[in-house]
């Protein structure tokens, strides 16, 4: 996938001009948090679950060599062929080789962010394979030639009217109304059903890999992933090695976090565990199954200070709660993963040079860390990346110098207090009449969008000291 994270600010400026899309983002930003909150409150003991899963994940990642080897062994015992890929190119070639070995032409594909990461669809299509996305959201954006704007709801940036136009153009089914959302879903169901029945290869992702028994866990609401896993004669499971968890019960515990954080459901409609090809007396299922495991710098992340990022379960809660994501949408981030998790993963999986703006696309409000089901300290990791940018001189020179000056001033609190004690009363006097400033030197980034409130006369430290003094006096009395 072509990366445009370098131009995040320009992408964002463009994105906020589209009033329709901005409105849809606003609705989601208002709708999703209460849905998640209700599901979590119903659970009653969510924090204990969160800490339990975090402990299991850390244990698993700390000993990933052991659990991955165990998964591989069990998975091979179940009849799978397991492949390892260092990077996206290697990954795509492995998948293409499997398809070509079976002279496959038609592929039914379930939702997989990993294959978005490697650009698998384009790669297979260049080799003349007919790859059809079958998750409704992924199908819509594939037909529109777009990329996902959200990791859970990839087509939520599009209106029903746009999707109607798209279907009328792409599906040669004669004149029809498609007035309701249900009509659109029904039409996609019909088109995709035919593809499912004719596909030779099914490709799915995995939400977890279970070391103790070699099963992979797949969760969907539509059931499309299960159709991909059961109908074609070849199944390829595309995922990454950090999905490994020790036991089946660990995967189901993680699922409790995932569904509530992603969609507010207590359980996804379809939660399936697949072990391998059809058994001796089975009448259905794939004849051959492959598991392709991508590294793509994850082993580097594991050994780095950013290893907690591998606990991410791709629920999208941090996107749904991020004020920056809500304002600019997923496409502005310029790669596969948007929002807070994407602002960390993108620099780590591509390069910091290509995504300098992303760690700065953060207001440090901390909502993402509050809602992250696996308790990843997202704002801290974003700050560490900003620090790295400064160390590697990737940010602009005036910005770095400004930050340096600011840091120096903060290290000299007496001087800082003295300067603010002069500056604040002056700003108070100047802004007294209006109560705010519509323009301020060196702050037009702020004042071009909104007024800057005029200080009320005293600095925080002056007020703090006065309050302490008053309470001491009261205590003496």
């Amino acid at each position, binding site marked *: 996938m072509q990366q445009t994270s370098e131009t995040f600010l320009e992408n964002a400026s463009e994105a906020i001009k589209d009033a329709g899309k901005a409105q849809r983002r606003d609705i989601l930003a208002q709708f999703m948090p209460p849905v998640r909150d209700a599901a979590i409150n119903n*659970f*009653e003991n969510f924090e204990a679950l969160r800490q339990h899963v975090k402990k299991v994940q850390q244990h698993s990642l700390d000993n990933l060599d052991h659990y991955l080897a165990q998964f591989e062994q069990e998975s091979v015992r179940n009849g799978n062929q397991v492949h390892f890929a260092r990077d996206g190119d290697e990954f795509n070639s492995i998948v293409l080789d499997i398809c070509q070995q079976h002279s496959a032409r038609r592929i039914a594909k379930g939702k997989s962010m990993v294959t978005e990461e490697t650009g698998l669809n384009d790669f297979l299509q260049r080799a003349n394979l007919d790859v059809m996305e079958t998750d409704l959201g992924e199908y819509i954006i594939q037909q529109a030639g777009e990329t996902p704007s959200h990791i859970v*709801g990839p087509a939520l940036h599009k209106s029903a009217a746009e999707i109607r136009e798209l279907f009328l153009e792409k599906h040669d089914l004669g004149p029809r109304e498609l007035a309701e*959302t249900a009509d659109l*879903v029904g039409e996609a169901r019909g088109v995709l059903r035919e593809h499912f029945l004719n596909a030779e290869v099914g490709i799915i992702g995995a939400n977890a890999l279970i070391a103790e028994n070699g099963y992979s866990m797949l969760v969907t609401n*539509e059931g499309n992933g299960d*159709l991909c896993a059961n109908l074609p004669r070849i199944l390829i499971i595309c995922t990454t090695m950090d999905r490994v968890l020790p036991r089946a019960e660990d995967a189901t515990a993680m699922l409790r976090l995932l569904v509530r954080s992603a969609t507010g459901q207590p359980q996804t409609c379809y939660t399936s565990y697949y072990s391998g090809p059809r058994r001796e007396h089975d009448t259905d299922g794939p004849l051959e199954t492959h598991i392709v495991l991508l*590294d793509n710098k994850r082993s580097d992340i*594991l050994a780095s200070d950013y290893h907690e990022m591998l606990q991410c379960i791709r629920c999208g809660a941090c996107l749904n709660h991020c004020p920056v994501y809500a304002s600019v949408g997923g496409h502005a981030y310029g790669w596969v993963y948007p929002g807070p998790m994407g602002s960390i993963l993108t620099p780590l999986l591509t390069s910091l040079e290509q995504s300098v703006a992303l760690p700065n696309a953060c207001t440090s409000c901390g909502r993402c860390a509050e809602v992250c089901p696996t308790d990843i300290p997202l704002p801290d990791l974003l700050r560490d990346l900003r620090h790295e940018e400064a160390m590697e001189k990737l940010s602009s020179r005036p910005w770095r110098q400004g930050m340096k000056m600011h840091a120096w001033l903060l290290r000299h609190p007496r001087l800082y207090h003295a300067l603010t004690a002069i500056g604040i009363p002056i700003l108070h006097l100047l802004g007294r009449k209006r109560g705010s400033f519509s323009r301020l030197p060196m702050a037009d980034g702020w004042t071009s969008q909104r007024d800057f409130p005029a200080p009320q006369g005293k600095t925080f430290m002056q007020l703090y000291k006065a309050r302490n003094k008053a309470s001491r006096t009261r205590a003496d009395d």
Partner: protein
Amino acid sequence: MTNSARSQIFAKLRQASRGAPVDTLERELQAMGRAPAAALPCPDLCTAFLANVLKNQGSVDCAADRSGTVQVVGQYLYQHYRSHRLVAGNDPRLAALPWRDAGVLPRFGSVEPGEPVALSFARLAVAETGSIVTWTGKANPAANNLLAEHHIVLVDSADLVANTEQAWDRINQDMEKSGRPRGINFIAGPSSTGDIEGQLVYGAHGPHSWHVILTGDVPVTALHEARDLAGG
């Protein structure tokens, strides 16, 4: 390519690993205990399960014995589809039911295009999530869960467990005896999607409707109480 990729990846993982011995890892996992499960809506398992099925947009019924089971299946078929036909997997438990008594005409096998109703006999049900569990295999071909417009599921109350951990205990016991099935499917509702403007639509790829019949020893008040709990 793959072999060298494998050894390179494992070499990097080993560098980042604690390298703890297996018995230490097992001890650590044991010490973590079990994850908390979701609170059940009421203490009675049958009622809690039925309430959660309803919350998952399924419909429910109960039957005390084999004769009652075929009657409720027959009534449901006729009321909803004006039909007596359905497709069921080659499950001996389904084959043994007295279908003729209720005038139901089952065909045993895998759903074919144009056959709208499938029937499965679940291996397990989970009260916590309101889900039923099927194994892939000739007793329940995957198409029957996924390709029919309407999915009816029977589950015996003796196979009802409180939470997913208990479900896995049962699955693991079964796997020790009979080996690992190709697929284990937890189903908790009709197929659904919210991918268009977040609006929930049923029947995305799989069944539009999902009807669960709890058989065997079920408290007489369970259905009524479950409906109250689910708010319907």
